[in-house]
């Protein structure tokens, strides 16, 4: 089972900062990163938001680095393909394998570097949102954006049930491991299928219970939630504006 980032979001150092401001900052950084034609802006975003998450939000460094290995493995595989396939500019390095001519050119190296930087910057911005904003607060923002009520209700209920089902899955898995459920490949296939099937049936029964609970509390197709509104402080607003200004300047200024 993997780490659920939401656990950290509930106790992070930037918990009190206004949700909309954090979302705006994170999403703008993602957009700046993807629109930037040079690797400078995404690299700056990646490093600065990484520092913000570790220093301001006080997320342990080890956990942050471990998180980054997930996207990096995908990005590196794909970048190798891009490095060898796309072309233009002079050849830096060339060799042949099985009669195929493979070459790394100046432009393909630039492209691969840009993509690595964008993935790094984008993932850091995503981690910034994920590690500083608990999902519960996103629902308020979704409501402000006037997304369909059914969609928001569905998201809230799914959010709630993810944690219940993960608990069930861990319990079933532990029971299976104790009974040598995962000793051979054949065993593990059958144990895993049994786990998934039982999880489905358990979740279905939970769903039926949920309906009964909601009916008992006069559910009429709408879930109302009280929200505590707070305004972003002017200092936080200024800091975010200055930061985004720097990022945009780095994006526009040619390298």
């Amino acid at each position, binding site marked *: 089972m993997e780490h659920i980032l939401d656990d950290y979001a509930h106790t992070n150092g930037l918990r009190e900062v206004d949700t909309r401001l954090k979302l705006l900052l994170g999403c703008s950084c993602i957009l700046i990163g993807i629109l930037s034609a040079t690797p400078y802006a995404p690299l700056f975003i990646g490093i600065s938001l990484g520092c913000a998450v570790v220093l301001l939000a006080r997320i342990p460094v080890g956990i942050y680095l471990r998180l980054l290995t997930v996207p990096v493995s995908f990005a590196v595989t794909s970048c190798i393909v891009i490095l060898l396939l796309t072309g233009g500019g002079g050849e830096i390095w060339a060799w042949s394998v099985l009669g195929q001519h493979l070459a790394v050119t100046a432009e393909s190296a630039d492209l691969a570097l840009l993509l690595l930087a964008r993935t790094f910057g984008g993932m850091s911005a995503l981690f910034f949102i994920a590690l500083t904003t608990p999902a519960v607060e996103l629902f308020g923002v979704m409501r402000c954006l006037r997304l369909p009520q059914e969609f928001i209700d569905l998201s809230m209920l799914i959010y709630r049930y993810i944690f219940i089902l993960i608990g069930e899955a861990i319990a079933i898995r532990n029971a299976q491991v104790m009974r040598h459920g995962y000793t051979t490949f054949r065993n593990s296939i059958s144990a895993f299928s049994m786990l998934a099937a039982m999880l489905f*049936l358990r979740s279905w029964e939970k769903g039926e219970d949920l309906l009964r609970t909601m009916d008992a509390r006069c559910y009429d197709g709408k879930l109302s939630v009280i929200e505590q509104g707070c305004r972003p402080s002017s200092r936080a607003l200024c800091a975010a504006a200055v930061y985004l200004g720097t990022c945009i300047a780095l994006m526009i200024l040619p390298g």
Partner: protein
Amino acid sequence: MHIMEGFLPGPWWQIWFLISAPFVIYGLYQLKMLVRERREALPLLAVAGAFIFVLSSLKLPSVTGSCSHPTGTGLGAILFGPFITSVLALIVLIYQALFLAHGGLTTLGANVFSMGIAGPIIAWLIYRAGMKAGINTFVTVFLAASLADLSTYIVTSMQLALAFPAEVGGFMTSLAAFGTVFAITQVPLAIIEGLVIALVFKYIISARPDLLVRLNVLSESAVDRIRGPAA
């Protein structure tokens, strides 16, 4: 297989948002109708969405030792139909991006298309066709789930190849290259997921066949036929 944040350049990430939008909007419309018609649908869909999330965050037993997760959307499509699955997949993908750092927000459109639309539609079509043709239920479920996985992976390779065509040979060369690189992990994964989902089906049929009948996945006579020899 998720495309990471920042990996798809413009205009491709915008294009995939535009392509996915009609499917998701139609799914939302269907969801609205369903909830209005049958109130019990919402909590049941919610646990289904949570189930897809949890299933896709579990590690499958794998041969190569690489990190492999089932997509889970094939099962969703067989049970709930492709359009509602696309709405569930959208929510699940947002949560995966925010909770598990799989995928991203600008690449959401592309990921929803490959995992929430292409895969489920293939799974659903194969399942319906197999049922109509009277092929063995477990074989059909196996084919539906594993081909849905494979098509997800082919669509992802296509999305990458379209965004980064090769200098020599263009799109096709690029597609072949991305396809080969990812095939190492994705092909065994698809076969394993097919096997697992078929077994899941077997367990559900033996424990609560009434659920499948109510969801209109299997007819009562089909359940009797499958359970017959065992009973």
